[in-house]
Protein backbone atom coordinates (compact mmCIF):
# COMPACT_ATOMS: atom_id res chain seq x y z
CA UNK A 1 0.00 0.00 0.00
CA UNK A 2 3.04 2.25 0.36
CA UNK A 3 2.76 3.34 -3.29
CA UNK A 4 -0.38 5.25 -2.30
CA UNK A 5 1.40 7.64 0.02
CA UNK A 6 5.09 7.55 -0.92
CA UNK A 7 4.58 10.11 -3.72
CA UNK A 8 2.64 12.30 -1.32
CA UNK A 9 5.49 12.11 1.18
CA UNK A 10 7.93 13.14 -1.54
CA UNK A 11 6.03 16.40 -2.05
CA UNK A 12 8.06 19.46 -1.00
CA UNK A 13 6.89 22.90 0.08
CA UNK A 14 8.73 24.31 -2.94
CA UNK A 15 6.57 22.24 -5.27
CA UNK A 16 3.43 23.40 -3.48
CA UNK A 17 4.63 27.00 -3.87
CA UNK A 18 4.97 26.37 -7.61
CA UNK A 19 1.36 25.09 -7.67
CA UNK A 20 0.32 28.38 -6.08
CA UNK A 21 2.32 30.34 -8.68
CA UNK A 22 0.71 28.21 -11.42
CA UNK A 23 -2.70 28.90 -9.90
CA UNK A 24 -2.03 32.65 -9.86
CA UNK A 25 -1.02 32.57 -13.54
CA UNK A 26 -4.19 30.65 -14.42
CA UNK A 27 -6.25 33.14 -12.38
CA UNK A 28 -4.66 36.13 -14.14
CA UNK A 29 -5.26 34.47 -17.52
CA UNK A 30 -8.94 33.69 -16.91
CA UNK A 31 -10.20 36.33 -14.48
CA UNK A 32 -8.09 39.26 -15.68
CA UNK A 33 -7.65 38.09 -19.29
CA UNK A 34 -3.92 38.88 -19.13
CA UNK A 35 -2.20 37.17 -22.11
CA UNK A 36 -4.46 34.12 -21.52
CA UNK A 37 -3.10 32.19 -24.48
CA UNK A 38 0.30 32.03 -22.76
CA UNK A 39 -0.27 32.48 -19.05
CA UNK A 40 -2.85 29.69 -18.88
CA UNK A 41 -0.64 26.98 -20.47
CA UNK A 42 2.37 28.23 -18.46
CA UNK A 43 0.34 28.16 -15.23
CA UNK A 44 -1.04 24.69 -15.86
CA UNK A 45 2.38 23.43 -16.94
CA UNK A 46 3.91 24.80 -13.72
CA UNK A 47 1.56 22.55 -11.75
CA UNK A 48 2.16 19.61 -14.07
CA UNK A 49 5.97 19.63 -13.80
CA UNK A 50 5.98 20.15 -10.05
CA UNK A 51 4.37 16.87 -9.09
CA UNK A 52 6.76 14.55 -7.24
CA UNK A 53 8.52 12.43 -9.90
CA UNK A 54 6.44 14.14 -12.62
CA UNK A 55 6.37 12.03 -15.78
CA UNK A 56 5.86 15.22 -17.83
CA UNK A 57 9.60 16.00 -17.64
CA UNK A 58 12.73 13.85 -17.75
CA UNK A 59 13.34 12.03 -14.47
CA UNK A 60 16.05 9.67 -13.30
CA UNK A 61 14.27 6.95 -11.39
CA UNK A 62 16.51 4.26 -9.90
CA UNK A 63 19.30 5.55 -12.15
CA UNK A 64 17.25 5.07 -15.30
CA UNK A 65 16.25 8.02 -17.47
CA UNK A 66 12.52 8.25 -18.05
CA UNK A 67 11.82 10.74 -20.83
CA UNK A 68 9.04 13.25 -20.30
CA UNK A 69 7.07 14.74 -23.20
CA UNK A 70 7.59 18.35 -22.10
CA UNK A 71 11.37 17.89 -22.01
CA UNK A 72 11.18 16.31 -25.47
CA UNK A 73 9.12 19.26 -26.73
CA UNK A 74 11.62 21.65 -25.15
CA UNK A 75 14.55 19.93 -26.89
CA UNK A 76 12.66 19.81 -30.20
CA UNK A 77 11.37 23.35 -30.30
CA UNK A 78 12.86 25.76 -27.78
CA UNK A 79 16.45 24.55 -27.28
CA UNK A 80 16.96 25.10 -31.03
CA UNK A 81 14.79 28.32 -31.08
CA UNK A 82 12.39 26.76 -33.60
CA UNK A 83 9.04 27.51 -31.88
CA UNK A 84 9.68 31.21 -31.20
CA UNK A 85 10.89 31.68 -34.77
CA UNK A 86 7.82 29.94 -36.22
CA UNK A 87 5.67 32.16 -34.02
CA UNK A 88 7.38 35.15 -35.60
CA UNK A 89 5.97 34.14 -39.00
CA UNK A 90 2.49 34.45 -37.52
CA UNK A 91 3.29 37.76 -35.82
CA UNK A 92 4.74 39.13 -39.09
CA UNK A 93 1.58 38.12 -40.94
CA UNK A 94 -0.50 39.94 -38.33
CA UNK A 95 1.54 43.18 -38.46
CA UNK A 96 0.29 46.07 -40.54
CA UNK A 97 3.27 48.32 -41.26
CA UNK A 98 1.01 50.81 -43.12
CA UNK A 99 1.11 53.64 -40.54
CA UNK A 100 4.90 53.31 -40.34
CA UNK A 101 5.36 53.19 -44.12
CA UNK A 102 3.32 56.35 -44.58
CA UNK A 103 5.50 58.14 -41.98
CA UNK A 104 8.89 56.34 -41.84
CA UNK A 105 10.43 59.00 -39.56
CA UNK A 106 8.51 57.37 -36.70
CA UNK A 107 11.06 54.56 -36.95
CA UNK A 108 13.58 56.42 -34.77
CA UNK A 109 11.26 56.28 -31.75
CA UNK A 110 11.55 52.50 -31.84
CA UNK A 111 15.31 52.84 -31.45
CA UNK A 112 15.02 55.26 -28.52
CA UNK A 113 12.58 53.04 -26.67
CA UNK A 114 15.07 50.17 -26.44
CA UNK A 115 17.20 52.24 -24.05
CA UNK A 116 15.92 50.23 -21.08
CA UNK A 117 17.32 46.98 -22.50
CA UNK A 118 20.90 48.23 -22.69
CA UNK A 119 20.70 50.22 -19.45
CA UNK A 120 19.28 47.21 -17.60
CA UNK A 121 22.08 45.10 -19.02
CA UNK A 122 24.59 47.46 -17.37
CA UNK A 123 22.70 47.24 -14.05
CA UNK A 124 22.27 43.47 -14.33
CA UNK A 125 25.95 42.93 -15.09
CA UNK A 126 26.72 44.04 -11.52
CA UNK A 127 24.91 40.94 -10.26
CA UNK A 128 24.97 38.34 -13.07
CA UNK A 129 27.47 37.07 -15.66
CA UNK A 130 27.16 38.99 -18.95
CA UNK A 131 25.27 36.25 -20.82
CA UNK A 132 22.62 36.12 -18.10
CA UNK A 133 22.50 39.91 -17.66
CA UNK A 134 22.02 40.39 -21.41
CA UNK A 135 19.27 37.75 -21.53
CA UNK A 136 17.49 39.26 -18.52
CA UNK A 137 17.70 42.76 -20.04
CA UNK A 138 15.94 41.50 -23.18
CA UNK A 139 12.76 41.07 -21.08
CA UNK A 140 12.48 44.84 -21.67
CA UNK A 141 12.00 44.19 -25.39
CA UNK A 142 8.39 43.35 -24.47
CA UNK A 143 8.73 40.63 -27.03
CA UNK A 144 8.49 37.06 -25.75
CA UNK A 145 9.99 35.22 -28.75
CA UNK A 146 13.01 37.56 -28.88
CA UNK A 147 13.61 37.08 -25.14
CA UNK A 148 13.49 33.28 -25.57
CA UNK A 149 15.85 33.25 -28.56
CA UNK A 150 18.40 35.57 -26.89
CA UNK A 151 18.34 33.59 -23.62
CA UNK A 152 18.70 30.34 -25.53
CA UNK A 153 21.49 31.51 -27.84
CA UNK A 154 23.44 33.03 -24.94
CA UNK A 155 22.90 29.84 -22.93
CA UNK A 156 21.41 31.66 -19.97
CA UNK A 157 20.78 29.65 -16.81
CA UNK A 158 17.56 31.56 -16.22
CA UNK A 159 15.43 30.70 -19.23
CA UNK A 160 12.35 29.79 -17.14
CA UNK A 161 12.13 33.00 -15.07
CA UNK A 162 13.02 35.12 -18.13
CA UNK A 163 10.19 33.64 -20.19
CA UNK A 164 7.67 33.99 -17.39
CA UNK A 165 8.73 37.59 -16.72
CA UNK A 166 8.69 38.52 -20.43
CA UNK A 167 5.15 37.28 -21.00
CA UNK A 168 3.78 38.50 -17.66
CA UNK A 169 5.10 42.02 -18.11
CA UNK A 170 3.76 42.16 -21.66
CA UNK A 171 0.35 41.61 -20.14
CA UNK A 172 1.04 44.33 -17.56
CA UNK A 173 1.83 47.06 -20.10
CA UNK A 174 -1.47 48.91 -19.37
CA UNK A 175 -0.50 49.07 -15.69
CA UNK A 176 3.22 49.81 -16.05
CA UNK A 177 3.32 52.45 -18.81
CA UNK A 178 0.73 55.13 -17.84
CA UNK A 179 2.28 56.14 -14.47
CA UNK A 180 5.76 56.38 -16.02
CA UNK A 181 4.43 58.54 -18.87
CA UNK A 182 2.50 60.81 -16.49
CA UNK A 183 5.57 61.22 -14.31
CA UNK A 184 7.70 62.38 -17.24
CA UNK A 185 5.22 64.63 -19.06
CA UNK A 186 3.16 67.68 -18.23
CA UNK A 187 -0.58 67.78 -18.98
CA UNK A 188 0.16 70.38 -21.63
CA UNK A 189 2.59 68.00 -23.36
CA UNK A 190 0.08 65.16 -23.22
CA UNK A 191 -2.46 67.42 -24.93
CA UNK A 192 -0.25 68.16 -27.95
CA UNK A 193 -2.23 67.31 -31.05
CA UNK A 194 -0.57 65.72 -34.04
CA UNK A 195 -2.07 66.09 -37.50
CA UNK A 196 -2.45 62.88 -39.39
CA UNK A 197 -2.05 63.20 -43.13
CA UNK A 198 -2.48 59.68 -44.48
CA UNK A 199 -0.32 58.95 -47.51
CA UNK A 200 -1.10 56.25 -49.97
CA UNK A 201 1.40 53.40 -49.58
CA UNK A 202 1.94 51.55 -52.84
CA UNK A 203 1.81 47.77 -53.06
CA UNK A 204 5.41 47.80 -54.34
CA UNK A 205 6.56 49.54 -51.12
CA UNK A 206 4.61 47.09 -48.96
CA UNK A 207 6.22 44.13 -50.76
CA UNK A 208 9.78 45.50 -50.86
CA UNK A 209 9.73 46.74 -47.23
CA UNK A 210 10.06 43.30 -45.55
CA UNK A 211 12.78 42.27 -48.00
CA UNK A 212 14.78 45.49 -47.48
CA UNK A 213 14.52 45.23 -43.69
CA UNK A 214 15.75 41.64 -43.78
CA UNK A 215 18.75 42.59 -45.92
CA UNK A 216 19.68 45.65 -43.84
CA UNK A 217 19.22 43.88 -40.49
CA UNK A 218 21.11 40.86 -41.79
CA UNK A 219 24.06 43.01 -42.86
CA UNK A 220 24.18 45.03 -39.64
CA UNK A 221 23.45 42.22 -37.23
CA UNK A 222 23.79 38.78 -38.82
CA UNK A 223 22.87 37.11 -35.54
CA UNK A 224 19.41 38.68 -35.80
CA UNK A 225 18.73 37.66 -39.36
CA UNK A 226 16.62 34.65 -38.44
CA UNK A 227 14.54 36.71 -35.99
CA UNK A 228 14.00 39.55 -38.47
CA UNK A 229 13.77 37.20 -41.44
CA UNK A 230 10.95 35.05 -40.02
CA UNK A 231 9.03 38.15 -38.93
CA UNK A 232 9.39 39.73 -42.35
CA UNK A 233 8.65 36.47 -44.16
CA UNK A 234 5.29 36.40 -42.38
CA UNK A 235 4.67 40.00 -43.42
CA UNK A 236 5.62 39.27 -47.02
CA UNK A 237 3.10 36.39 -47.09
CA UNK A 238 0.46 38.91 -46.10
CA UNK A 239 1.47 41.77 -48.37
CA UNK A 240 2.24 39.83 -51.58
CA UNK A 241 -1.48 39.40 -52.19
CA UNK A 242 -1.20 35.99 -53.85
CA UNK A 243 -0.83 33.77 -50.77
CA UNK A 244 -3.97 34.54 -48.83
CA UNK A 245 -4.32 30.92 -47.69
CA UNK A 246 -0.78 30.80 -46.30
CA UNK A 247 -1.11 34.24 -44.75
CA UNK A 248 -4.37 33.28 -43.03
CA UNK A 249 -2.83 30.02 -41.82
CA UNK A 250 0.23 31.85 -40.42
CA UNK A 251 -1.95 34.41 -38.61
CA UNK A 252 -4.41 31.91 -37.26
CA UNK A 253 -3.64 28.18 -37.19
CA UNK A 254 0.17 28.36 -37.08
CA UNK A 255 0.27 31.12 -34.45
CA UNK A 256 -2.31 29.31 -32.30
CA UNK A 257 -0.63 25.90 -32.49
CA UNK A 258 2.82 27.28 -31.68
CA UNK A 259 1.45 29.46 -28.87
CA UNK A 260 -0.32 26.45 -27.39
CA UNK A 261 2.78 24.25 -27.43
CA UNK A 262 5.14 27.09 -26.49
CA UNK A 263 3.30 27.97 -23.29
CA UNK A 264 3.20 24.51 -21.81
CA UNK A 265 6.75 23.75 -22.98
CA UNK A 266 8.07 26.89 -21.27
CA UNK A 267 6.65 25.46 -18.05
CA UNK A 268 9.13 22.58 -18.29
CA UNK A 269 11.69 25.14 -17.11
CA UNK A 270 9.63 26.01 -14.03
CA UNK A 271 10.62 23.15 -11.78
CA UNK A 272 10.77 24.31 -8.17
CA UNK A 273 14.48 23.64 -7.62
CA UNK A 274 15.53 25.89 -10.51
CA UNK A 275 12.76 28.50 -10.22
CA UNK A 276 12.41 29.26 -6.50
CA UNK A 277 15.62 31.17 -5.96
CA UNK A 278 16.54 34.69 -4.94
CA UNK A 279 17.84 35.11 -8.49
CA UNK A 280 14.28 34.77 -9.82
CA UNK A 281 13.14 37.74 -7.74
CA UNK A 282 16.10 39.74 -9.06
CA UNK A 283 15.18 38.79 -12.61
CA UNK A 284 11.57 39.89 -12.12
CA UNK A 285 12.83 43.17 -10.65
CA UNK A 286 15.30 43.80 -13.46
CA UNK A 287 12.67 42.95 -16.09
CA UNK A 288 10.34 45.56 -14.61
CA UNK A 289 13.21 48.03 -14.51
CA UNK A 290 13.89 47.40 -18.22
CA UNK A 291 10.23 48.01 -19.10
CA UNK A 292 10.14 51.27 -17.14
CA UNK A 293 13.36 52.58 -18.69
CA UNK A 294 12.27 51.60 -22.20
CA UNK A 295 9.13 53.68 -21.70
CA UNK A 296 11.14 56.54 -20.21
CA UNK A 297 13.69 56.37 -23.05
CA UNK A 298 10.98 56.78 -25.69
CA UNK A 299 9.21 59.64 -23.90
CA UNK A 300 12.41 61.55 -23.08
CA UNK A 301 13.67 61.18 -26.65
CA UNK A 302 10.44 62.70 -27.97
CA UNK A 303 10.79 65.56 -25.49
CA UNK A 304 14.37 66.06 -26.63
CA UNK A 305 13.25 66.23 -30.27
CA UNK A 306 10.63 68.82 -29.33
CA UNK A 307 13.45 71.19 -28.35
CA UNK A 308 14.29 71.45 -32.06
CA UNK A 309 10.99 70.83 -33.82
CA UNK A 310 8.65 73.62 -34.89
CA UNK A 311 5.75 71.21 -35.11
CA UNK A 312 5.90 69.44 -31.75
CA UNK A 313 5.24 65.75 -31.32
CA UNK A 314 3.21 64.43 -28.44
CA UNK A 315 5.94 62.89 -26.23
CA UNK A 316 3.60 60.07 -25.21
CA UNK A 317 4.00 58.43 -28.63
CA UNK A 318 7.66 57.75 -27.78
CA UNK A 319 6.49 55.26 -25.15
CA UNK A 320 4.80 53.16 -27.84
CA UNK A 321 8.26 52.32 -29.17
CA UNK A 322 8.40 49.28 -26.92
CA UNK A 323 7.40 46.19 -28.79
CA UNK A 324 4.17 45.18 -27.04
CA UNK A 325 2.05 45.45 -30.18
CA UNK A 326 -0.74 46.63 -30.42
CA UNK A 327 -1.34 47.13 -26.70
CA UNK A 328 1.12 49.96 -26.18
CA UNK A 329 -0.11 51.91 -29.23
CA UNK A 330 -3.69 51.68 -27.98
CA UNK A 331 -2.78 52.80 -24.47
CA UNK A 332 -1.10 55.96 -25.77
CA UNK A 333 -4.14 56.72 -27.92
CA UNK A 334 -6.42 56.23 -24.90
CA UNK A 335 -4.25 58.44 -22.70
CA UNK A 336 -4.38 61.16 -25.37
CA UNK A 337 -8.18 60.99 -25.42
CA UNK A 338 -8.32 61.16 -21.62
CA UNK A 339 -6.55 64.53 -21.70
CA UNK A 340 -8.39 65.90 -24.74
CA UNK A 341 -11.29 64.00 -26.29
CA UNK A 342 -10.40 65.35 -29.73
CA UNK A 343 -6.76 64.24 -29.64
CA UNK A 344 -6.48 61.22 -31.91
CA UNK A 345 -2.99 59.75 -31.65
CA UNK A 346 -3.81 56.22 -32.78
CA UNK A 347 -2.13 56.20 -36.20
CA UNK A 348 1.05 57.83 -34.84
CA UNK A 349 1.24 55.55 -31.81
CA UNK A 350 0.61 52.46 -33.93
CA UNK A 351 3.35 53.53 -36.36
CA UNK A 352 5.77 53.90 -33.46
CA UNK A 353 4.56 50.61 -31.97
CA UNK A 354 5.34 48.57 -35.11
CA UNK A 355 8.71 50.31 -35.34
CA UNK A 356 9.27 49.05 -31.77
CA UNK A 357 8.52 45.53 -33.00
CA UNK A 358 11.31 45.83 -35.56
CA UNK A 359 13.66 47.66 -33.18
CA UNK A 360 13.29 45.09 -30.40
CA UNK A 361 14.23 42.28 -32.77
CA UNK A 362 17.29 44.20 -34.00
CA UNK A 363 18.20 45.04 -30.38
CA UNK A 364 18.02 41.31 -29.58
CA UNK A 365 20.29 40.62 -32.55
CA UNK A 366 22.79 43.27 -31.45
CA UNK A 367 22.88 41.80 -27.96
CA UNK A 368 23.51 38.35 -29.42
CA UNK A 369 26.33 39.65 -31.62
CA UNK A 370 27.94 41.40 -28.64
CA UNK A 371 27.99 38.36 -26.38
CA UNK A 372 27.88 35.20 -28.51
Amino acid at each position, binding site marked *: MSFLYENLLALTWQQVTMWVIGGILIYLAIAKEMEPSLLLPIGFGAILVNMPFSGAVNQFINGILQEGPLTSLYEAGIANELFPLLLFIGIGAMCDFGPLLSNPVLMIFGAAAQFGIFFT*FCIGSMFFPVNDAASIATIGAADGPTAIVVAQVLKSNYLGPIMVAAYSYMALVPIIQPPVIRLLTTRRERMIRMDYEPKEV*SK*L*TRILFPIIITVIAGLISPAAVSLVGFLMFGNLLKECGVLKGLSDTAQDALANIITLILGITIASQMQAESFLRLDTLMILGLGLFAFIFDTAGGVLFAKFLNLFLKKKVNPMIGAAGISAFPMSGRIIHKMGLEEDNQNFLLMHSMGVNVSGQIASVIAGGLIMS*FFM
Partner: protein
Amino acid sequence: MNFTPANFVANLQYLLKGELGLFFALGIIALSTIVLNKISEKK
Protein backbone atom coordinates in the same frame (compact mmCIF):
# COMPACT_ATOMS: atom_id res chain seq x y z
CA MET B 1 25.28 35.90 -7.57
CA ASN B 2 28.14 38.33 -6.87
CA PHE B 3 27.85 42.10 -6.55
CA THR B 4 30.48 43.76 -8.76
CA PRO B 5 29.71 47.49 -9.17
CA ALA B 6 32.70 48.01 -11.49
CA ASN B 7 30.89 45.98 -14.17
CA PHE B 8 28.33 48.78 -14.56
CA VAL B 9 30.94 51.23 -15.81
CA ALA B 10 32.80 48.57 -17.79
CA ASN B 11 29.63 47.65 -19.69
CA LEU B 12 28.38 51.17 -20.41
CA GLN B 13 30.12 50.85 -23.78
CA TYR B 14 27.41 48.35 -24.80
CA LEU B 15 24.70 50.91 -24.00
CA LEU B 16 26.38 53.31 -26.40
CA LYS B 17 27.14 50.69 -29.04
CA GLY B 18 23.65 49.21 -28.84
CA GLU B 19 21.79 52.51 -29.13
CA LEU B 20 24.09 53.74 -31.92
CA GLY B 21 23.61 50.45 -33.76
CA LEU B 22 19.84 50.72 -33.43
CA PHE B 23 19.65 54.34 -34.59
CA PHE B 24 21.94 53.47 -37.50
CA ALA B 25 19.91 50.40 -38.57
CA LEU B 26 16.52 52.04 -38.16
CA GLY B 27 17.79 55.26 -39.76
CA ILE B 28 18.84 53.33 -42.87
CA ILE B 29 15.53 51.47 -42.95
CA ALA B 30 13.63 54.78 -42.60
CA LEU B 31 15.68 56.36 -45.40
CA SER B 32 15.17 53.33 -47.65
CA THR B 33 11.44 53.52 -47.02
CA ILE B 34 11.34 57.23 -47.86
CA VAL B 35 13.20 56.53 -51.12
CA LEU B 36 10.90 53.59 -51.86
CA ASN B 37 7.84 55.79 -51.28
CA LYS B 38 9.25 58.44 -53.64
CA ILE B 39 10.00 55.89 -56.37
CA SER B 40 6.60 54.27 -56.22
CA GLU B 41 4.92 57.73 -56.06
CA LYS B 42 6.37 58.63 -59.47
CA LYS B 43 4.99 55.45 -60.97
